[in-house]
């Protein structure tokens, strides 16, 4: 079953440079395998495909330089299902014998896969899992290339109370391993600023959020924060606007996807604000390194870099640097990661001993004219 899924996942890559032999165990001489794990075809694939593309871009660029040791990217489509992710991780370790993993993409699956990777002594770098607790397990082989929700939540809350100047905020979470702690962090930080907070939770598997919308309408807030993924976020935003609620809508990185705009409708989504520990390379950037990445990404995938694309690129780059330095075993690569200090596209990449990246910037994005645009760093951004 797991093997079949792995094969299917590779087939889905849809690119000529991905070898279609995800199930075979013998790597070509002078080739090492790096895995990518995440929800590639499920409901929230929109925020996993860009980091996959970013990682693939980095590896393709590296392979084009004709190095002594080439890298092959093996994709594992967990569909964000922790039990599937664990089975795929075991396949990656035992059958594919990968030497490093970019992912898992989400926090829930990361919590389940972490111990498996730890036992196998296989280094991983997630480009998108932001749950705080992941770093508290004492895992030595786990890393992430972006700040956690403990940084993101307060950062967004500071913006809500500061840049957005809200006094009465309604905070909703989706009860998930990602959404609940993020919303709780926002609640706690808002409370310290003397902002009035009202709460509710929803079940993201549902499609009728009218009871939530009724509560929001009754509370008459001037801002709403939703901790959860874009699939539910878009429906929620739409149903809020349908109930004539016109308060500012804010959310976290899980909602930073055009799926939010599609789900809510462009008119309803206009002006929505989304915080993210990620840095999206928008086409109008001037920094040469970021621009180079954005152009190469656009050329390869015929789309502008979206959420976590630069983080996926940076995570893969760390593994590439390790291979360049002659490290081709998981143990050596992990050793290398602990000492790495390189200028990535999204940030300066340097890991603390617990696996957290040291740079801690949160960015605020805004929906304008049906597209996601960068407003600025959370601490500095102002609503025009």
């Amino acid at each position, binding site marked *: 079953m797991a093997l079949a899924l792995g094969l299917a996942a590779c087939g889905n890559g849809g690119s000529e440079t991905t070898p279609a032999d995800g199930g075979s165990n013998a790597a070509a001489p002078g080739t090492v395998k790096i895995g990518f794990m995440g929800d590639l075809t499920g409901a929230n694939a929109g925020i996993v495909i860009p980091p996959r593309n970013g990682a693939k871009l980095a590896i393709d660029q590296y392979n084009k330089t004709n190095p002594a040791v080439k890298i092959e990217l093996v994709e594992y489509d967990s569909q964000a299902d922790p039990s599937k992710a664990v089975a795929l991780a075991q396949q990656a370790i035992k059958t594919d014998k990968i030497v490093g993993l970019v992912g898992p993409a989400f926090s829930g699956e990361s919590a389940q896969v972490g111990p498996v990777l730890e036992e196998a002594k296989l280094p991983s770098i997630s480009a998108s899992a932001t749950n705080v607790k992941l770093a508290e397990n004492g895992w030595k082989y786990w890393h992430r290339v972006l700040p956690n929700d403990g940084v993101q939540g307060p950062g967004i809350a500071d913006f809500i109370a500061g840049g957005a100047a809200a006094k009465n905020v309604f905070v909703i979470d989706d009860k998930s391993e990602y959404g609940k702690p993020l919303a709780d962090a926002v609640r706690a930080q808002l409370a310290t600023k003397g902002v009035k907070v009202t709460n509710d939770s929803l079940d993201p598997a549902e499609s*009728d959020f009218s009871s*939530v919308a*009724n*509560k929001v*309408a009754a509370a008459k807030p001037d801002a709403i924060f939703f901790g959860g993924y874009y699939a539910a976020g878009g429906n929620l935003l739409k149903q809020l606007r349908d109930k004539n609620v016109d308060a500012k809508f804010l959310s976290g990185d899980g909602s930073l996807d055009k799926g939010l705009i599609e789900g809510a*409708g462009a008119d309803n989504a206009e002006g929505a604000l989304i915080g993210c520990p990620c840095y999206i390379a928008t086409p109008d950037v001037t920094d040469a390194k970021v621009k180079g990445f954005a152009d190469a990404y656009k050329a390869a995938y015929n789309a502008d870099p979206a959420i976590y694309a630069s983080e996926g690129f940076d995570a893969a780059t760390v593994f590439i640097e390790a291979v360049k330095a002659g490290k081709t075993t998981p143990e050596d690569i992990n050793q290398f990661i602990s000492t790495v200090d390189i200028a990535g596209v999204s940030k300066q990449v340097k890991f603390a001993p617990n696996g957290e990246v040291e740079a801690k910037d949160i960015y605020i994005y805004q929906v304008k004219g049906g597209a996601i645009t960068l407003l600025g760093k959370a601490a500095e951004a102002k609503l025009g």
Partner: protein
Amino acid sequence: MFNDFINQFWPSTVDGLAFGSIYALIALGYTMVYGVLRLINFAHSEVFMIGTFGAMFVPFVLGINSALTGLALVGVIVLMILAGMLASAGTAVALERIAYRPLRRRGASRLAALISAIGASIFLQELFALIVIPNVFDRPQQGRIQMALPQIMERTDLFSIAGHPVKLHQVVVVVAAVGMMIVLDRLVNGTKIGRGIRATAQNPEAAVLMGVNIDSVVRMTFLIGGGMAGVAGALYLIAYENTNYYIGFLFGIKAFTAAVLGGIGNLRGALVGGVTLGLVENYGAIFFGSDWKHVISFTILVLVLMFRPTGILGESLQQARA
């Protein structure tokens, strides 16, 4: 807390009625099939899912991407309902033909039919996620991602109750659902087809002896139940403007609950059960939070069944008179 209840009572009532009527339309399919075959058609949730996509097909083909008004709007809504009915009824009849009838012919146990239903349900979900949505709706590799309907209907405030606006789309949902249920009630209680259905439900063997063609009655039952799920799918889509391959799961469970709550095998029970469930969910959410909706609805179900094991109305299709 009671202050919250007073503030949110009217909007919750309107939402509960609108959503409850969608539950009720789906519940009809469970209840009719149960009444006639003593079988829970667990693939009925997918019949609803396919109804939403059938309805989605109309604006997709017509290339509608902005709100309509007047006759064009009415026309598109009618077309969407018809397309939903066609897709759902077709699916239900095919299900009966492929997944149930062969088992029934060979005298297989009801458990076998149940497993067959679960298999058919998973098959249909994956069929849509892997083949239909990517190809028919031109969304390659996005079969599992929610599909949004462009807003075809402005969110106009029609009138207001105690200062809370009631929207046009909510009224459309309730009126259309109630209309369909009246038509169905007349069909079952006032026509020859209906008499056949009721006769088969009461005593299949006697019905055969009286010249009722069981196979065609069963097919008719699936056809009508599927059609109602298709209407539900179209109305859901118009009101909530999104669907996905997995949408039937929760609706199926809730509508089945509604059917049992109202009294399974009882057509009017499905209506009572659906609306009760819709209202209770929304009222309960005011007190306990929206994430407690499911807990509240199933607690109510258990409580009702403890005191009325046959559901609120109890009486089944077999004894239905008039």
